[in-house]
């Protein structure tokens, strides 16, 4: 899912992160003010945006207002996990649990 950009992407050099405007997507498993940070994984046709990662514990999609970079910290409130974004062997980003 691609959220609207808050500011134009700086392609050259990519020294700044892209920022996104998050809106609620119908996720109802956390208190209202946190809902925009999560969404359901819609199955095989679904795609993660540059500001999204799947929680390996509970399979919910975690969203950030910033483009994700390796080393970023994420919180999965639906399952209470702290995660760290890492670059996997195939070059994609994934979230791993950090106890």
């Amino acid at each position, binding site marked *: 899912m691609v959220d609207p950009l808050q500011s134009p992407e700086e392609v050259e050099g990519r020294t700044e992160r892209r920022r996104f405007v998050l809106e609620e997507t119908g996720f*109802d*498993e*956390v*208190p*209202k*003010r*946190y*809902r925009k*940070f999560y969404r359901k994984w819609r199955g095989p046709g679904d795609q993660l945006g540059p500001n999204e990662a799947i929680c*390996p*514990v*509970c399979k*919910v999609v975690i969203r*950030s*207002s*910033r483009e994700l970079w390796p080393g*970023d*910290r*994420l*919180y*999965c*409130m*639906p*399952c*209470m*996990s*702290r995660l760290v974004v890492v670059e996997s062997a195939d070059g994609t980003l994934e979230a791993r*649990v950090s*106890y």
Partner: protein
Amino acid sequence: MGTAPVREVHDLEHERFLEEVHSFEFWFHSVEGYLSGTTYGHREETVDDSPSGAVDRQHLITVLSNYCIGEMAALEGASGLIAIAPNQLTKIFLSTQVADEGRHLEVLLHRMRDLGVKYPAQEADRRASRGLKQFRHELLRLVQGRDWEAAIFAQNVILESLEFAVFRAHAEGADPVTKEILDGIIKDERRHIGFGENELGRRLHAAPHVRTRLARVREELDHLILDMLEDSSREIGVEPDRKAELARAYLQSVERLGFT
């Protein structure tokens, strides 16, 4: 944390995050999102398209019977664990889990009554698998022995992960009312499995010697888990290739904690 809009939840300090997600307040506003407007776990307007054939109906009753005994084990386990929980945050979280488990048991028993079972509690006890009853016995033994790590491992990692995987698979092909009930339970289970894995992960990091004891507990419970997985897969009609997927889903959390 109040009601002000949150700019970026991932910027919270970890201590603050833990305090928030373990709180009764967080739980209350979470379940409000998906349970308000439901009666016994489903919306009243949902059409009850439960199996009309006698064989399929009996089959569903047996499946629900096993779920009831699993939820009963979790209810008794979680309530017993409050007394030995190491701090206030975990005690408060477990009080919310007790409420969740009590609700699960109630809605499942009610569903059995909907399906024509006059005495659902007795019927659940009569029909539930031997492996599940044995697991319940072993779990309560760990709780009574005041072994916090082992009991959390058995209940919130092993039992809850198994339930999470089985309920998700069952919900995919269930009748609309049963599906809604299971979907609501799955949302609660996310908190329970996450609590177990993260609590144990932190404790194993701080005290690696605990790992040896937990590996032994896993070894003792493994055959019961595999039996339960086999029974559940058969009962809910999981195809052989999906069965492996189900087992993998259960094993992932155990493996993330370093148990292979």
